[in-house]
């Protein structure tokens, strides 16, 4: 393979990354704009970040979003963990294929459909829409991500370490807490972070399932943008991008580290005494 730099490589790299990140970069740059006009650069300033603290509507929306993300990702992690365990542990039980298909379906389901169907359900059972319904909706679509992450970790899990724990006098329940859970913890944490960021990002499903007093930040941003983009929006978006990026980076680092450690184990096991 030719690893040297060529103009072709350079240009495609710049174009590719530019295509992906230029809009976001522009948004971040203009959040530090002195001018009130989004398209005119008038010098560096952080005043819009200060102005955010005065904007009670945005702050409320941010607080709602974080509560929803925290509760929904925590519940989704527990449910996803159980589903992942079920899929990887209980062998070929009746309906396993159907069950695993149904776990994965929300990954590819159009958000509009998910949102609409949830809305119809909440209306049908005349459930007051608000914080609770948004949270439930977010649990629904993010638990499948956790299930996928947990299941893929459990597939490579050496079950003899659980047997070893039981052999040494540890009952099954305690074995799960003392052995299985700590070993798969990186996968669980990265599943949690993933569903947390998914919940932060979501606009479509939240719009369908929310009610008065439970406006999330993406919804707030969207509704304000319709009245014209202000540098304030740029500032809040920049913060959101920052949080999501940190979450994704931590999640992937955790997964990578876990993988690297296992690879190292295998290398050492293969080495001489």
């Amino acid at each position, binding site marked *: 393979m030719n690893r040297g730099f060529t103009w072709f490589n350079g240009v495609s790299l710049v174009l590719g990354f530019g295509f992906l990140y230029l809009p976001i970069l522009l948004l971040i740059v203009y959040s530090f704009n002195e001018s009130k006009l989004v398209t005119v650069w008038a010098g560096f300033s952080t005043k819009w970040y200060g102005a955010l603290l005065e904007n009670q509507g945005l702050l409320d929306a941010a607080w709602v979003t974080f509560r929803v993300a925290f509760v929904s990702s925590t519940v989704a992690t527990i449910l996803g963990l159980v589903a992942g365990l079920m899929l990887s542990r209980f062998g070929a039980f009746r309906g396993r294929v159907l069950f695993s298909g149904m776990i994965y379906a929300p990954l590819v389901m159009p958000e509009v459909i998910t949102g609409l169907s949830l809305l119809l359900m909440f209306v049908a059972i005349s459930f007051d829409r608000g914080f609770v319904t948004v949270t439930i909706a977010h649990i629904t679509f993010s638990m499948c991500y956790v299930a996928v992450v947990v299941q893929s970790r459990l597939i490579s899990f*050496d079950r*003899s*370490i659980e*047997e*070893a*724990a*039981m*052999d*040494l*006098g*540890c*009952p*099954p329940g*305690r074995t799960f807490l003392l*052995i299985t859970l*700590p*070993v798969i913890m990186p996968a669980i944490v990265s599943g949690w972070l993933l569903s947390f960021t998914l919940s932060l990002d979501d606009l479509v499903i939240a719009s369908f399932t929310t009610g008065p007093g439970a406006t999330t930040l993406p919804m707030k941003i969207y509704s304000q943008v319709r009245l014209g983009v202000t540098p304030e929006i740029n500032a809040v978006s920049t913060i959101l991008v920052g949080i999501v990026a940190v979450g994704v980076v931590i999640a992937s680092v955790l997964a990578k580290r876990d993988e690297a*450690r296992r690879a*190292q*184990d295998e290398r*050492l*096991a*293969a*080495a*001489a*005494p």
Partner: protein
Amino acid sequence: MTEAGGAPRHKTVEPWNDPGQSPYIQIAGVSKRFGAFVAVDNVSVDIFKGEFFALLGPSGCGKTTLLRMLAGFEEPSQGRIMLEGEDMSTVPPYQRPVNMMFQSYALFPHMTVESNIAFGLKQDRVPKDEIVRRVAEMIQLVQLDDFAKRKPHQLSGGQRQRVALARSLVKKPKMLLLDEPLGALDKKLREQTQFELMNIQEELGITFVIVTHDQEEAMTVSSRIAVMDHGRIIQVATPAEIYEYPNSRYVAEFIGDVNTLEGRITQLGTDFIEIKSAQAACRIRAGHGVEAPVGGAVWVAIRPEKLNISVTPPDDTSVNCMRGEVWDIGYLGNLSIYHVRLESGQMVTSCLTNQTRLVERAITWEDSVYLTWAPSSCVVLTG
């Protein structure tokens, strides 16, 4: 681990031949079926206290399933497993006074060597200072003093094997089960570890049951071997008996190399039998009786090292003497192996110890040779 000190090893105690001894572990009519597949088929065997008992067989013969039933990971479909007279068949693994050393070692990756070893004692709520003392003892026994604070992934294969051994011994189990414990080690280290295992077993006096597919390993370490095939035990005996007096062609061929010659019984004496074999093209005389009628089909098994090879004919060429041509020679350093083609076309193997330095071969390719053996050194098998 420990230097071989004190008196040399004595292996003259044979509780299985002493009718006054009661067995420590009784496996009585145990079967295990997975659906239609019979993994273990009506196995009965008694194991005595302090034994180093080997379950030997090819992969898929049911030896690991039998071991897992002893550990409690599988429940017998039929039959009972008793430890000191108490039925253990349905006791879960975490309540059995039995520990196992896993083939993959199964160390807890998130715990240090110390915590791995202490895990079993913590489950039994042993007082803290006693845990510290016993763990330190074990770490010393397996010579891991410098590695106590390390995690498993920072250890080599041989060190992990020691941690696994220490962890399974620290609770002083009534029986230690070892599932291919040395399978992941290279040959040199494996041979060394075999002797260390024997020393530890003798020092602690714990009954060991080992599963292995390596016949040399089974011969080296064990007091008795159970040879298994297709879920059944074919023969249970000491390594020497298994080698010298196999009870079937399967055992004879599984343990070491052997020449088997087909024949029919022509004469039954009180302490000998005579067999006519077309393959050997001579009368075969064997120095022991057999449960078969005159005219019955039998197989004569002769180990290569018991077959003398010579270019000069013996005094009597009519009995226990085969003629052939040297087809191939294998030089192994300590041994030379001769593949001889008999006049009937049958190939047999004879091996000679190279007692003097090899300068010129006394017997070489295409030599016409005589193969002879004593009536006491062949075994007649009926199946």
